[in-house]
């Protein structure tokens, strides 16, 4: 699974996710990536793209849940991502999220040993990483 979230100069956010699913999937199994509100979500406060054991991200409604915490509780994107990923973990799921806030904040959070990830912004910050300790 791959994904991107962004906040543009106008403070608008967007999210996109794309996946091949899981090896050996059968019976028309579909995970969270194409389900709006689960693996992919964007509204006026933040954008979310997810990767991991899709069934758990569907059950938690991860994308919408993170945005709701930002909107209703005023949490920052990193805090909201951590709390909602805690719900995924509690159900037995693993994976990661990337989140871009309309306030220009951005965060990633993952519960697996590693995640292919990258970030860049207009201040010149730029990083890519794979292993958890990179």
């Amino acid at each position, binding site marked *: 699974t791959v*994904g991107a979230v962004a906040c543009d100069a106008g403070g608008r956010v967007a999210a996109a996710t794309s996946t*091949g699913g899981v090896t050996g999937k059968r019976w028309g199994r579909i995970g969270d990536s194409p389900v709006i509100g689960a693996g992919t979500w964007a509204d006026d406060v933040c954008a979310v793209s997810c990767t991991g054991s899709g069934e758990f991200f569907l059950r938690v409604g991860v994308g919408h849940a993170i945005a709701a915490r930002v909107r209703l509780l005023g949490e920052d994107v990193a805090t909201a991502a951590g709390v909602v990923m805690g719900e995924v973990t509690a159900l037995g799921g693993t994976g990661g999220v990337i989140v871009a806030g309309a306030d220009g904040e951005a965060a990633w959070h993952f519960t697996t040993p590693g995640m292919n990830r990258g970030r860049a912004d207009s201040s010149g910050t730029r990083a890519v990483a794979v*292993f958890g300790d990179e």
Partner: protein
Amino acid sequence: MSWTLMIHGGAGRLTAETLTPAQHEGARAGLDRALDAGSAVLAAGGAAVDAVEAAVKVLEDDPHFNSGRGAVFTHEGTIELDAAIMDGATRKAGAVAQVSATRNPVALARAVMEDGRHVLLAGAGADSFSREQGVEQADLSWFATDERRRQFAELQASGDTFDVDMKYG
């Protein structure tokens, strides 16, 4: 004129033990290219929705990641692709599931979003919508890679035991 961009290429048991140095470096290079593509849009004052589509397209074309070229195989040895895109400014959204012949599924999700009549299209119907909309097509030979064939064979040999962490995806 500040902007931010975040990307991912999948999470899982990604460690120095499970990845070869070549896979590790290849993934990092692909992530760099995706950051270049999305940042170019944002630095030019472009919209977030165009930036995320541009970045994901780069990752879909990179065989190091499980999407588009390099996607994993289904139980039947086929490839079924899913994608979604959503614009926070308008709440417009497009998504496709189980598509099999669109080179960049995120571009098809964008076409669904721009068409606006539906949000989620699936299967053969989504494939025909893709052809009708003139989205670039590709066949199995574009999507299938030797590494994924190896993983598929490994899974078949293991008797289809399903490892939620490893999942090869």
